[in-house]
């Protein structure tokens, strides 16, 4: 499971990095999305991978924490997802504004001379 997750994060971040460096703003935004998926999975993995373990402990009494998944990274991922979702939406608006002003979807606002 560790290997699959690591490969998945690697593939997401690698493709995201490549796309962020492309000249078209649409490619950049897809790249940012992929990067943020990779990072979210990475945060998740920092709580150690567990199968079939709940993250919420029952109320009262003494519990054995080793039977439960670490809830903090899951909470962090949730926050990170919300924030990256919001900022991506904002970037989408700027992208459209840029397309409207410049008439091109190049990130520098003008197409390089061919």
């Amino acid at each position: 499971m560790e290997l699959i997750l690591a490969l998945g994060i690697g593939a997401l971040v690698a493709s995201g990095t490549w796309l962020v460096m492309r000249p078209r703003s649409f490619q950049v935004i897809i790249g940012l999305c992929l990067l943020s998926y990779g990072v979210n999975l990475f945060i998740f993995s920092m709580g150690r991978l567990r199968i079939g373990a709940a993250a919420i402990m029952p109320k009262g009494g003494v519990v054995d924490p080793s039977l439960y998944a670490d809830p903090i990274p899951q909470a962090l991922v949730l926050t990170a997802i919300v924030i990256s979702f919001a900022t991506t939406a904002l970037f989408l608006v700027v992208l459209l504004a840029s397309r409207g002003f410049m008439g091109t979807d190049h990130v520098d606002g003008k197409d390089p001379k061919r």
Partner: protein
Amino acid sequence: MTPQHLVIAPILIPLLAGAAMLLYEERQRRVKFAISLGACVAMLAVAVELLIRAKAPSGGSLIGLYLLGDWPTPFGINLVLDRLTALMLVLSSVLSIAVLVYAWGGWQGRGQHFHSLFMFQMMGVNGAFLTGDLFNLFVFFEIMLAASYGLLLHGSGPERVRAGMHYIVINLVASLFFLIGVSMIYGVTGTLNMADLARMMPDLIARDRAMVQAAMAILGLVFLVKAGIWPLGMWLPATYQAASAPAAAMFAILTKVGVYVILRVAFLNFAPGSGASAGFGAELLVVGGLATIAFGSLGILGSQTMPRMAGYAVLISSGTMIGTAGLALLGGGSGMLAGALYYMLGSTLGIAALFLLVELVDRGQSAVAAMLALSADLFGAPEDEPEEDQTGLIVPATMTILGLSFAALAVLLAGLPPLPGFVGKVVMLTAMLKGGVSGQAVAWIFMAALIISGLATLIALLRVGVQTFWAAADQDDPKVLAVEIAPILALLALVAVLTWQARPVMRYMEATAAALHRPEVYISGVLTAERTQHRREVAE
């Protein structure tokens, strides 16, 4: 609000004010302005009160602590108030009042929701200063950045949208790095509380220490992007140049947020004499600071326009701060850091005033250019476009006042007597000669860079000043309202007061720098202050 809860006020005031203003229509600017100004003044009052409290701590603890939800310290989110935090809070709220009054002159009406965005940015900035938790720092960073995206685009236009797109992408990628660093630290140490982390730092086993240091390096990258260090600060001059004057002036504090976090995190974890990790990354900070100063000096000499120069002045200022932080981490002593903090006050206010001033001067020049273009088209006298919302007292002898203010700012930023740029640099240089790094090659290089950057700033600003104020005979006096020039003059007066009252201010800075060198006070303050408070509540 009881005195104890005052610590959270710098976050709550802008949040409530910003949210309340969303209820008003865009046309009701008078109400919005009144609300924002009230909020900013309240923030300043709170910040001054917190400063006094941080200066003379009560109850034996040297720091103020506020527990959100009253969870015990390592688990809950906390806000921490110490001297450095209080200082930054005062700086940001002073700046916000000046910028807000300036925006009343017209900028507030050239886009949507200026005041709300402004307030949310203040909330993010204040939150980043106050928080004692790494993940919460990320959240406040995002609030600050999201508002700054909006402020950068304020006024719209192709130039701003293009600069905004680059700015947003760079900061989004930086935020992802922030998340990676934070989660790595959590994965290794199991805590995100800065004080708790700093407590563990000296006792980490070698393998874990390497991981935490790597995570810290990734975090450092993010803060250095924010501070605009070379080579991560290439975006900065273009972005700040494109932003509208009030937005750019507020952005002057954003780079200082990066500097603040570097100071906070580096001195908590890697202060001289803190075990095996002491001085981690210090060389990099020094080299980066030097490179930034060099890049900023060359840039300011090579710039043709005033806004661009102001952008490079930001780089010089943050390069100086980062480099000094690195030298202090190497064991340069707290005197140097005190000088740098003093310098930071003057240079931040000065750069903000410069951004405000530049727009006023450019206004006259663009009026001439627009007139030429118009007369070429129509062969007639151009109509005077009545600017909307520009009501109020128009200042006489505009160019004289602007020219004098510009000269004062050049003196301030170049570090000539009698303004604080000079005092700060003198203190830094004396401490470098006397302190722990005296005689080392790096100290000499840094001193040279400090002086040469001042010279470069002076040459560049004087050149453009002569062109603008003396040589341009055919220039119209720009129409400048009293509310637009008043904030600049007020900032200058404040800077003059800093020189006049240099002794108490410097004493505060020295205590701040000394406190930064004693992270154990911060750590034990955070980790033990909670218990007494908890005990008291249990007793009640």
